[in-house]
């Protein structure tokens, strides 16, 4: 079946521009995650949704970062007034897990590479 998809795959933004990154999770997956991966580093957690509820946004680096999942499926990560330090790959992952007793396995998309010039 279809995996997690992300769009666009590549985005170049000028400093100060706003960007929106889209994630289409696997159909029926309850949980959705956003991660930021800098070059040569491991992914860093940004935020977590269960259905439409954003249960954890402690990893968002500043109030310029905003994520939403209004209908509990597609999610958008928005970055306002982009800065050069925002350049990274943004990964989305989904999981069928909604409560105790099942795997914590996450299924990752290919990521969106954001370059801020």
């Amino acid at each position, binding site marked *: 079946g279809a995996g997690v998809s992300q769009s666009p795959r590549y985005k170049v933004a000028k400093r100060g521009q706003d960007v929106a990154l889209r994630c289409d999770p696997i159909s029926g997956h309850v949980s959705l995650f956003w991660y930021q991966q800098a070059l040569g580093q491991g992914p860093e957690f940004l935020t*977590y949704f269960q259905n439409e509820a954003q249960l954890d946004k402690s*990893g968002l680096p500043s109030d310029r970062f905003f994520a939403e999942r209004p209908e509990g499926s597609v999610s958008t990560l928005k970055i306002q007034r982009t800065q050069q330090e925002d350049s990274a790959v943004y*990964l989305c992952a989904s999981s069928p897990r909604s409560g105790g007793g099942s795997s*914590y396995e996450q299924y990752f998309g*290919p990521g969106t590479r954001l370059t801020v010039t």
Partner: protein
Amino acid sequence: LAKTTQPISMDSYEGQEVNITCSHNNIATNDYITWYQQFPSQGPRFIIQGYKTKVTNEVASLFIPADRKSSTLSLPRVSLSDTAVYYCLVGSFSSGSARQLTFGSGTQLTVLP
């Protein structure tokens, strides 16, 4: 917040067994340990997950000691296509709460012919 530490790189030869260890001294009671494989320009791919003792699947084994402060991913008989970055992830999430999920810095495994 569980901090994880892994070796930066490892080299191996085809057909050998490879063991990669991850340290996670601050692991919490509810945290699970998951290992992922990542190729360039791709998202991480699930390998194996465990809570304690030993877990084995068709591609790997995961060893977790009783104190759970470390874990070891074992890849039997590696091939050239196993060349990738391997990450351990410590954390958990549920319907009632969310716990920040921490990836290690990754181990670049290079398999040589």
